[in-house]
Each structure stands twice: as structure tokens, then as C-alpha cells.
């Protein structure tokens, strides 16, 4: 079997060049650890010096799964962040088992109870309340059948949530009417720039709700007819999964208001729609126990047939506050519809950020996510995307930056069940500190009827400090037999050849390294549709890299 031998050989070559000491054990099917360069490489059977690709054709029931857990140890040469050796990898159990449920968990029960007591926002109509109470009831049921996720659950294997469980969690009750943020700082200059602002989980302000047939605002500003027509039919129904996820359910119980975006059929919005989630209230320290203030913002986006919109979601909060933002966004895209989703997580450094993004894509639609996760102490983003018809396109580009005592975790699941689907995922992660940790589990599932799928997935991580850790598991499950798929993961230092290129052009190696570290992330940030957002994100990333000593301070900004 030609495919097998090629895949295996590229595995060995790659391991010896990139992670000299890593061990990789295939669980089932092929296992590949390949330095990837570009996800657009030709998906034929080929290995190249730039990266390794495996193409699999006509081999049903393949499962490719690797879990690479890499830790850097020992210190580096001239520049401490540069050359590191990667060590042993472990392979996870590939079963996605659920925790056995032994009845309700006290902590969860308590928390659910506190959330249930929360009032809806006062402006909500009876129909609005009905819509949200459906969600609350359903979520309450689910939550009580689930347990607080621990490291024993595969999906939380590397995400240690014990500190949160050992804290007090208090839902935010009083939501500020004024967030105190300057909209201009976010590039929002006037009401003509369509925007929506959440303050501690409820909407505090927005541009005018209706504009050119597009609705952006609170459920409270929607008529009963609209609520029945749009909200009740869709809320909590973007995927079955959303009703089984612990944190999505917790959000469902704690929801007090709903942000709604409706872009009707055929409307192509030119300017982006900007949503800011701000957290200001933090928990206090009560004796030994830290308290976290929990808010549960929720967004519902409906994009009609042939409609197009760019949505910016930004999460920010008061510096130094201990808060937990537990957000859910549901996105529905009708036939030929299109969403460009730009998402920046720049929460306060003590905050916990957990977010679910759930996307349901109909035939010929397109969804493109560009994501930057920079802030918070613990960040967990779950993405769940389903292609519900043929000729559908999905792209995800994520950049996660983990500094001191930071965990940046991305779990994504993309399900293709129809012919001629297109999927691209690029995950990039930098870990700057020995106490930082990057986690990535990216699952792309190509089901039996998803013939002629073209799927590519690539994960690249840069470890800049001794003992910095990433755990990455890009995985492609292919059941269809006529597909083009490429897949790779690389955990590396900067490329020597690139550094030399800079030197050969007169640029000293330290400046070269700094530029390359920054550009590693900039490759993703450049994809933001909005220039202002891009520049702000670049500035934040640059400052963060500098503050952690990962790059020199005098480097010229791009």
C-alpha cells in the first residue's frame, strides 16, 4: 500500500529533523508528525522538503490521530528562547469517552441554582422570556446530568479546571449600564458603525437596531413575531452538541438576555458588525478562596440566503479583576450565505474565558473564522461546525499566545457530511514561558457521503522557553473514500533558513528572531478583515511578546 509507506517514511524523517527526541505511536491507522508549511500544498501523495503531506484516496475508514505533547527542557544557546529540544510525546486514548455520571455534582448543583435565580433583563417581553426560558429549562436539565469536567475526560485532559472549582463562583447580578469603555478605542466612531456592547453578560448599548433590513441588538428590541419566527426556532438548535456540552449548558441556564443579529436574504453588509463583550465586575478574595464573577453572554446570528456579513467579536475586561466569561455564540448560515468571523480574546490576565462557537452551514455557504487568543489566565474555545449541504466552505485560522501561567486551549470539530465540501484549518500557537501551555485538538470528520471533500489541516507551534508546553492533536477522520486531505503538525523553533535569509540581507539575528516570532502570529492577524482590528491585535501581541521577553523591545512595528 503506497500511501502507508509514504506516510510512514515522512513521519520518520520529520521526527528526526524537528523533534529529535519525540516518540510517536500510532494508535489506529496512520500517525503523522510532519512539519507543515502551507495548508494549500497539493494534496497528492507527496513529500516535500517544506512539509509532508499525505493524500489518502480510496482507503475507507481511516483514522489519523496523534497527540503530541511536547515539553521543552534544558536551556538554549545564545538566546534563551531559541533552540529547544522537544521531548517525548504521548498518545492519548483516542476514545472520546464521556464521564460516567454519578448523579448531580454539588458544586455544579449549587452553581446551577444560583444561575437559575438570575432575572431576565427588565425590558424583555413575555414572548422574549418564553424563548429564553425554554433554553434555561433545557440547559438546566442537561447541566444536572453532567459533571464538572476533569482531566479524566478526554476533552479536558490538558485543561485543568480545578482551580475554578475550588473557588467561589458568583454570577454577576447587577450589570452596569455604562461599561466605561471608549468605543473609539475599538475603532467605533459613531452610530453608523454598527455595534453591540455586552456589559457583564447583558447588552448595555448598541447602534440603532434596524438598518437596511438588518437587525442588530437585544432580543428585547425584537417584536414578538420576529422572536417567534427567528429566535424560538433557532436558539439552542445550531447543533445537538450544544445541548451536551457542560459549559454551553451552564451558559444556557445563566442567560439573561440574548444578542441577536439577523441579516435577511440577499443583504450583503459592506461594513463589519462589531460586538464587544466587556467584563467589569470581578470576584473578591474571601479568606483563602478566590471568588470569580460569572457572566453568560449569548449571541444568535442568522444569515439569510445569499446574505453576507463580517462579524467582529471582541472580549475584553477590567484589568486585575477575577471574572469568568462563559460565552456562547450560535451562527446559522442559509444557502449561499457567508460569514467572516473575526474574533479576538483579550481578557484581563486573571480572568477565565470559556467560549462556544457553534456554526450550522447550509449548502454552498461559507464560514471563515480568524481568531486571536491573547488574554486570560485560562482560555478554552470550543468550535463546532457542521456542513449541512454540498459545496460548502469552512476556514479556520487561529493564533494563540500563551505567556506566564496561561493556558490557551482550542478545541474544534468540523463535520463534513455532504459532497464537495471544502475545509482549511490553520492553528498557530506560541508558548513564551515555562508555565505557559498551549492545547489544540482539531477534529475534522469526513463522513461517508462527503465525497470529493478537500480538507487541509495544519498546526504549528513555537516554543520559546525551556519547559514551555504544547499538546496538539490535529486529527482527520475520514470515512468517505474519494477525498483530498492533507494534515500536519509541527512543533519547532524558528526556521534557521529564515534567520539566515535575514542575516544575508544585513539584519542581525536577534532582530531577525524577533521579527520572525512576531510574524509567526502576524500571519494569522493579517487575515482580519478590519484594518483597525488587525492593527490593535498586532499591537497587543507585540507588547505582550515584549513584556514576556520573547522579542526585543526596539523592533519596528509592521
Amino acid at each position, binding site marked *: 500500500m503506497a500511501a502507508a509507506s509514504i506516510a510512514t517514511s515522512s513521519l520518520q524523517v520529520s521526527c528526526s529533523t524537528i523533534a529529535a527526541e519525540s516518540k510517536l505511536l500510532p494508535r489506529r491507522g496512520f500517525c503523522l508528525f510532519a512539519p507543515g508549511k502551507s495548508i494549500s500544498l497539493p494534496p497528492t501523495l507527496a513529500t516535500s522538503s517544506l512539509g509532508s503531506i499525505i493524500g489518502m484516496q480510496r482507503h475507507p475508514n481511516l483514522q489519523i490521530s496523534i497527540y503530541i505533547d511536547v515539553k521543552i527542557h534544558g536551556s538554549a544557546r545564545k538566546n534563551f528562547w531559541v533552540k529547544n529540544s522537544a521531548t517525548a510525546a504521548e498518545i492519548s486514548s483516542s476514545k472520546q469517552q464521556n464521564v460516567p455520571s454519578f448523579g448531580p455534582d454539588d458544586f455544579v448543583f449549587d452553581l446551577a441554582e444560583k444561575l437559575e435565580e438570575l432575572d431576565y433583563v427588565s425590558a424583555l417581553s413575555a414572548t422574549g422570556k418564553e424563548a429564553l426560558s425554554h433554553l434555561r429549562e433545557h440547559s438546566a436539565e442537561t447541566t444536572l446530568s453532567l459533571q464538572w469536567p476533569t482531566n479524566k475526560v478526554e476533552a479536558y485532559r490538558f485543561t485543568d479546571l480545578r482551580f475554578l472549582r475550588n473557588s467561589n463562583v458568583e454570577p454577576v447580578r447587577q450589570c452596569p449600564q455604562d461599561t466605561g469603555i471608549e468605543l473609539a478605542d475599538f475603532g467605533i466612531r459613531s452610530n453608523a458603525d454598527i455595534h453591540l456592547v455586552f456589559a457583564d453578560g447583558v447588552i448595555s448599548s448598541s447602534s440603532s437596531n434596524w438598518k437596511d433590513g438588518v437587525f442588530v441588538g437585544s432580543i428585547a428590541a425584537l417584536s414578538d413575531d420576529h422572536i417567534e419566527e427567528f429566535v424560538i426556532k433557532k436558539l439552542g438548535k445550531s447543533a445537538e452538541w450544544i445541548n451536551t456540552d457542560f459549559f454551553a449548558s451552564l451558559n444556557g441556564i445563566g442567560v439573561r438576555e440574548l444578542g441577536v443579529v439577523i441579516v435577511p436574504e440577499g443583504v450583503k453588509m459592506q461594513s463589519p458588525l462589531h460586538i464587544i463583550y466587556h467584563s467589569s465586575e470581578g470576584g473578591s478574595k474571601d479568606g483563602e478562596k478566590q471568588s470569580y464573577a460569572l457572566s453568560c453572554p449569548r449571541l444568535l446570528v442568522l444569515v439569510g440566503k445569499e446574505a453576507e456579513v463580517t462579524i467582529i467579536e471582541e472580549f475584553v475586561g477590567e484589568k486585575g479583576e477575577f471574572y469568568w466569561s462563559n460565552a456562547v455564540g450560535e451562527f446559522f448560515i442559509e444557502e449561499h450565505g457567508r460569514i467572516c468571523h473575526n474574533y479576538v480574546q483579550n481578557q484581563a490576565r486573571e480572568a477565565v474565558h470559556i467560549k462556544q462557537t457553534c456554526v450550522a452551514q447550509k449548502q454552498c455557504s461559507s464560514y471563515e473564522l480568524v481568531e486571536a487568543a491573547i488574554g486570560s489566565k485560562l482560555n478554552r474555545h470550543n468550535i463546532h461546525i457542521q456542513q449541512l449541504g454540498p459545496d460548502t466552505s469552512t476556514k479556520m485560522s487561529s493564533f494563540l499566545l500563551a505567556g506566564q501561567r496561561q493556558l490557551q486551549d482550542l478545541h474544534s470539530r468540523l463535520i463534513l457530511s455532504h459532497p464537495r465540501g471544502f475545509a482549511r484549518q490553520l492553528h498557530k500557537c506560541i508558548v513564551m514561558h515555562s508555565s505557559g501551555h498551549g492545547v489544540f485538538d482539531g477534529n475534522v470528520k469526513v463522513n461517508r457521503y462527503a465525497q470529493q471533500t478537500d480538507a487541509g489541516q495544519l498546526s504549528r507551534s513555537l516554543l520559546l522557553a525551556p519547559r514551555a508546553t504544547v499538546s496538539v492533536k490535529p486529527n482527520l477522520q475520514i470515512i468517505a473514500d474519494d477525498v483530498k486531505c492533507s494534515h500536519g503538525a509541527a512543533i519547532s523553533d524558528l526556521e534557521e533558513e529564515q534567520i539566515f*535569509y535575514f542575516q544575508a540581507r544585513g*539584519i542581525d539575528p536577534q532582530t531577525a528572531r524577533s521579527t520572525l516570532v512576531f510574524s509567526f502570529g502576524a500571519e494569522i492577524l493579517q487575515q482580519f478583515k478590519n484594518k483597525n482590528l488587525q492593527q490593535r491585535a498586532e499591537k497587543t501581541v507585540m507588547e505582550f511578546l515584549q513584556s514576556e521577553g520573547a522579542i526585543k523591545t526596539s523592533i519596528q512595528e509592521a
Partner: protein
Amino acid sequence: MDAMVCLRAASAYSSPRLALKSPTATSILHASKRPAFLCIRNVAAIEIGQEMSSRNDSPKVLLKVEGLTAVVAGTDTEILRGMNLTIREGEVHAIMGKNGSGKSTFSKVLVGHPDYEVTGGTAVFKGEDLFEKEPEERSHAGLFMSFQSPVEVPGVSNMDFLRMSCNARRAAQGLPELGPLEFYGFLSPKLSALNMSPTFLDRNVNEGFSGGEKKRNEILQLAVLEADLAILDEIDSGLDVDALRDVANAVNGLRKSTNAVLMITHYQRLLDYIKPTFVHIMEKGQIVKTGDALLAKQLEAGGYEALSAGS
């Protein structure tokens, strides 16, 4: 015999003299098909050399490489086995040779690529020991190499890269940095000389560039750095006819009486545009033959077999 030594005085300055001699050489070559061609050329060169040195105005030596040997770093795989080469201001040298003979390695060693380790010999550039310098210092000193396959740098715009590079050299020369606008003014004519669209500046360095676009981009960097010695490694491979003309014209446009070019190529095509003063044939890490433009023509006609038969 060491042809290089005899020939080194022949320069661009003396090319009218050389041109005068050439028909003689050609006619002899045509008359007798294979034989003593090189020998005759060398005699001519010696004449010139003597004449030049007697006039005592021979151009300054830019680069002098003697007995250079190098291995793949960390191994004892020797790739360069005693390279000798002298390049003077105003000259154009071409190195030809079979795949794997060490041409790229030679150029990379000169610019300080970390994959190789110099094990013997010397290289003096503008009177200074090249091997004492870091790669970036060699660039600041005016040495440039265009890469045979330049690496892509995602996330760094071409414009930023060019400006960083330009300002690094200016800083080394004690000149003030150029701001973005000034730099654009400086860059613009160079861009149009290469028939390159300004959109290349916004793109990331070499990312998604076609083979030909990468080569143009290398020459753009050369133009920005205004190097004294440009080593061009297979600048012609993968170029279409128009691109080759653009690139060659740009290189010719950058030539001055005080700088020099070292080209590595497999084809006569490039030498039709950029006329070499000397052509060297490399084999197994050494220069085994040196001649003028005719040597390349002979090679083109008969391949390396014919050349070795002729020596």
C-alpha cells in the same frame, strides 16, 4: 595549469583589448575544432596582464579566495576542495559546472551560511578577512548573494523586509534610517526597473511568489542594498524570456566600474545578456578550467564531455 592566475588582470577595462584578440581565438578554434584553444587564450591574457600591470592601473581586487576548503557542518563531507578565485572591480565572472559540483555551496560559504564549515584557505573581501565576519557584517561590507531558492517568510511584508535590510546597511555605514515614505521614493525606480508591480511590496516575503517573481525579488534586494559584489546563484533558472531580459537588464543597470558580479548559471542564455569577463568551470569542489565567454559557448555546444576532451 592555473588559468586563473594568468587571467586575473583582464578586466572590464581591458575588454576592448580582449575583444580585439577574440576573433583570433575564435578563428583558431574554428580552424582546428578542438585543440589548444585555452592555451592561446591564456597567452593572450598573459600579454594583457603584463601590459596592465606595467601600466599599473589595474582595477582593485574585490575578492580573493585562495585554497578554500569547506565541509558540511558537523560532518567530514568535504564539498569545496581548494577553490581559488580573484574578482576585481568592474569584472563579471561566471561559474558553470555540473549539478552538485559545489557552486551553490561556494557562494553560501562566502556569505557565511551556517550549514557549512570552512576548513582551510582564505577569502579576503575589500581587504578584509571575510571569515572573521558574521553574515550580516558581510552584507554590510557590500557582499550580496541571491539565493537559488529563496525562503518564504509568511507574516513579514516585503516592504518591511526591504526597509529593514536597507536601514541595517545604512546604520552600518553611519547613515540615518530612511522612513517609510523616503524609502518608498528610493525603492520606486528600482521596482519599475525590474518591471515589478508595487503590489509585491504588500505581499509577504516570497510567499506564494512564482519562481520568476522570487528571482526578480532577489534582484530588487540587490538593487536596494547596492552591493559591491553580487553573487547570483542561478538567477536565470525558471525565468521566461521577458523575465530573463528584465532581470539581466536590471543587473546590467546596477553595474559600475567599482563593483563586480559573480554569476552561477547552467546556460549561455544569461551570458548573452550579461557578458562575462571570465568563465570558470567547477568540478568536485574546484575550479578546473577558466576561460572567457567562448568557454561557455563551447560548453553549450558540446557539454562537459567536450570540455574535458578539449583539455
